[in-house]
């Protein structure tokens, strides 16, 4: 038998594993979510195909059996459920999406684009967040499995718009999308760098439409039904896919040497982790978390004196993964306590203005889970707090 044939029969490829996929997605979402908290708002729009969605007036029409406002089909709900009910989670995360009501997932937008239908599915959750999942049908998986991208973000009264750039079957494809929580808002006018403008009707707080990948948004104006301006945002660097990408990927970069500010030996295997920082472009500070398996980070504006930009980061999955608290603390913060459900607390060491701390897995038991970070100044006064959300 040919050695290649024999090799291909050796250790047959395993069947796709939904559990492994869910765990992988969780690990990725944890990192993406953990880093997103430090990302300036305009960059959020670029980095994620999340939460945003939209609706042109025509989207209310029926498209290929998807009716805007109608319940999502079972296969869509299954994927939403898979994305929210993952296993392997070590600990409740502050950016988790508690209480998403999968059964109430419905179509918020259905548009026809140059790459085929694009749907936006939204689901409520108990925190009144905005949970939205984009489906570009051309990217669906074999077997009719919807290829959803999305998650939950703050459902507050603000607004954001952006252009999302995606390659679909090797074609550049751009969606203008946004969420408008402004009370009484009816339309969003986008003025582009090439002098053109377009007004989008807001439906159920979302806008979604295909746009020219070369477009760049200069100004976004939110209006009520009488045309009165409710909110307006000008972009100093017009938002376009390429420019957003440049801003995200190239403009914000380290401009000086990296310096290790905090280190940690993990519990059990004693792996060395390090938090490093370097001065960044555009008056940012770059930071990265270095682990044996990879490095992740970004460049962000410096935090204020009482700032507490600590995000929970999960690397790996239960039972062997690590749950870390890492990030910068403001100069005014003298001490930091991690409080547990039963009222006990422990001090978290601050190293050169950063913390890098692994929560002991023994503290994950119900009744003794971490609930809150409490920051105090040198007089012992509480100057900031950060609560963790619970999934269960």
């Amino acid at each position, binding site marked *: 038998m040919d050695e290649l044939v*024999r*090799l291909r029969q050796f*250790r*047959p490829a395993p069947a796709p594993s939904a559990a492994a*996929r869910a765990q992988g997605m969780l690990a990725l979402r944890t990192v993406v979510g953990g880093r997103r908290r430090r990302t300036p708002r305009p960059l959020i729009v670029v980095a994620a195909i999340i939460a945003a969605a939209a609706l042109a007036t025509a989207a209310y029409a029926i498209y290929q059996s998807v009716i805007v406002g109608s319940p999502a089909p079972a296969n869509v709900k299954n994927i939403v459920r898979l994305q929210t009910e993952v296993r392997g989670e070590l600990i409740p995360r502050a950016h988790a999406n508690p209480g998403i009501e999968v059964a109430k997932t419905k179509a918020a937008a259905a548009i026809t684009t140059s790459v085929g239908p694009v749907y936006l599915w939204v689901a409520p959750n108990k925190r009144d967040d905005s949970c939205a999942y984009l489906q570009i049908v051309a990217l669906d998986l074999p077997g009719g499995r919807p290829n959803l991208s999305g998650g939950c973000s703050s459902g507050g009264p603000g607004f954001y718009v952006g252009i999302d750039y995606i390659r679909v079957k090797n074609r550049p494809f751009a969606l203008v999308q946004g969420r408008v929580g402004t009370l009484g808002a009816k339309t969003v006018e986008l003025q582009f760098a090439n002098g053109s403008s377009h007004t989008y009707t807001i439906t159920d707080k979302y806008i979604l439409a295909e746009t020219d990948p070369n477009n760049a948004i200069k100004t976004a104006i939110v209006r009520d039904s009488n045309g009165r301006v409710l909110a307006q945002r000008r972009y100093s660097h017009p938002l376009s896919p390429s420019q957003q990408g440049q801003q*995200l990927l190239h403009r914000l970069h380290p401009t000086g040497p990296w310096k290790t500010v905090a280190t940690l030996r993990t519990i059990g295997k004693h792996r060395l982790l390090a938090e490093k920082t370097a001065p960044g472009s555009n008056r940012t500070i770059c930071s990265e978390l270095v682990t044996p*398996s990879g490095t992740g980070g970004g460049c962000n504006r410096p935090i204020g004196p009482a700032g507490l930009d600590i995000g929970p980061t999960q690397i790996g999955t239960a039972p062997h993964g690590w749950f870390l608290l890492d990030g910068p603390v403001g100069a005014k913060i003298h001490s930091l306590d991690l409080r547990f459900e039963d009222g006990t607390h422990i001090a978290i060491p601050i190293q050169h203005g950063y913390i890098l701390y692994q929560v002991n897995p023994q503290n994950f038991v119900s009744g003794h889970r971490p609930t809150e970070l409490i920051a105090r100044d040198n007089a012992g006064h509480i100057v900031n707090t950060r609560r963790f959300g619970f999934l269960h």
Partner: protein
Amino acid sequence: MLFERHFDSIHGYLVRRAGHDSGSEIASEVFVTAFARRSRYDLARPDATPWLYGIAANLLHRRRRDEARQLRAYARTGVDQALTNDPAERPDSALAAALGALKPADRETLLLFAWADLDYEQIAEALRVPVGTVRSRLNRARRQLRTALADDPILHPEEAING
């Protein structure tokens, strides 16, 4: 999108390489690493597959001792720890021994070709080596396997019946 499109194939490859637990863990790390390194990805590239397998290769490289140990153990005992769910499915310990004896770079190249179904150009891109190097590594690895397996043939069922 990248995750949805590539996870199953990357996961499948890594499970074959490193076993269920480690493979799943590394597969997660591949996409976390890809996210962290997204700035290095050239959007002009039509396909992210080689890039992701390149990341996977780097992560596997750090665990090459684990894999080599696993292959040696299998060669010795006939129990494939990489297939904990079905250890007796294909007790090809001779092949495990032969694989374990390959140079890591040759093994990486061979398995990207045989298990990940990458072509020469994609392997070159994944491992950041010239296509010529891929060809020579593949030739060497296949020759070495052929030699090692020459005394331990596994016959097709038809061959067994006819022979």
